[in-house]
């Protein structure tokens, strides 16, 4: 059982000023997840009649992309995983007893309360181009479209993006290029994505710009912060798709 000195961002509302609040969290087991440590803190706060800390979470299995947090200066903390799959032993093993917790910060991710940020900008990017046209009626045979294995693998790797926003939080420019490129690249590698291929890249890039995300300067921090190890190769793919949509053949 370990004790941690936690400093966590408190902000009462979107337009309020925030500050780092100090807490001592006792009785933390190495097998507890990071979010369970925060649950523990919130139970203490509630017992003392204080407002618990607001933070995002949902599946707690590392697949939904709801959890966030910048932990000791790193999106999702020191390991390549989501905050919900980060365990307290990661801190125990490295004798880290002080933990700073902040929300994912970007103008396009406004803070709602404490560590909860509004990431619906990502949803609007998806709405603008992250879809394919399908014929209604009976479901087609799963093997009706032949897709070479390497293409399927590349598409799958891009599709692994859970849209958590760590790439934006880690990027010095708050750029959403890794997220947008993962979506563009996923569908660009599959025959199902062909019908909207030209429009998709344009709509998604335009929406990304309109939402106020920054531009990519190829620092590579997004790839390092990504819990799903989405590669910046996808950004090169997005750039190729962008050029192709301008000067490539129309069909």
């Amino acid at each position, binding site marked *: 059982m370990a004790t941690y000195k936690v400093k966590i961002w408190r902000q009462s509302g979107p337009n309020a000023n925030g500050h780092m609040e100090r807490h001592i969290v006792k009785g933390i087991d190495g097998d507890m997840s990071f979010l369970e440590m925060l649950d523990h803190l919130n139970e203490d706060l509630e017992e003392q009649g204080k407002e618990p800390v607001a933070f995002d979470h949902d599946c707690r299995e590392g697949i939904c992309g709801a959890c966030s947090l910048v932990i000791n200066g790193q999106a999702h903390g020191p390991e390549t995983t989501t905050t919900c799959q980060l365990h307290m032993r990661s801190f125990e093993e490295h004798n880290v007893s002080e933990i700073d917790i902040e929300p994912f*910060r970007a103008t*396009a991710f406004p803070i709602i309360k404490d560590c909860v940020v509004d990431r619906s*900008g990502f949803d609007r990017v998806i709405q603008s181009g992250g879809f394919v046209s399908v014929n209604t009626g009976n479901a087609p045979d799963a093997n009706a479209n032949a897709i070479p294995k390497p293409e399927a693998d590349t598409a799958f790797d891009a599709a692994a993006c859970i849209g958590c926003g760590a790439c934006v939080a880690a990027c010095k420019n708050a750029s959403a290029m890794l997220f947008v490129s993962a979506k563009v690249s996923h569908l660009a590698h599959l025959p199902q994505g062909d019908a909207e291929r030209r429009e998709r890249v344009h709509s998604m890039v335009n929406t990304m710009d309109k939402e106020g995300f920054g*531009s990519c300067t190829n*620092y590579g921090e997004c790839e390092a912060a990504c819990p799903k190890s989405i590669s910046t190769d996808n950004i090169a793919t997005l750039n190729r798709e962008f050029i192709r949509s301008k000067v490539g053949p129309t069909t």
Partner: protein
Amino acid sequence: MSSNSSNSVPCGMTTVGAKMLVALTGMALILFVIAHMLGNLQVFLPGDELNQYAHKLKSMGPLLWVARIGLLSVFVCHVGLTIALTRRNAKARGALSSNEIQIRATGERYVNGYSYETATTASRFMIHTGIVIFLFVIYHLLHFTISPDHPPVAGDELIDVKAMVIEGFSHSIVAGVYIIAQLALAAHIYHGAASALQTLGLRTDSTKPGVSKAGILLAAIIGIGNISIPICVLTDIIS
């Protein structure tokens, strides 16, 4: 949505389109820098090859002005777009909202800064090395092109560029300014060259090893080539 007119890229371009133009103009400027360096390296030749070369360039007449205006347009496009994108990025990053002096004073987006894992120093200071290069270009033009102190004449109405170079770099402060600026240029090209290839979508599985080497190789060639001139003047290897 946080978009507004002051947060947009010039000419209604997307950020991706603007970045591609920055990449293309950057590549053009790298080609110019290489050509410029090869021309300058003639200072190491024993005769007055450098003077002949300078004379040839000067006698190009209208073509010289076409080249100058072309180069200036590329330069203005590269600098203008990066300033617009950098300002846009600062807005996108946002600022901490807090009354606490300690937090406000950090000037970072995160209270204790972000722990960068992979970003190279060169990549994080592109705008700074860019500003150094910009100021240097102005100084360099004033120094050698617009107002050379006393253009010495070496017979046949040739301007003695070689003497001008040697005279200029014999002052250690002048040589120092050139060396620092060339180090900034090398750092800028180190990230810029590889980054431009990625932005233009030229980094693929097969070209990946070459792309990462392109930055280092170009930075080393241009850095060593250009810095060798003031160093050799200072150490009397060229005299």
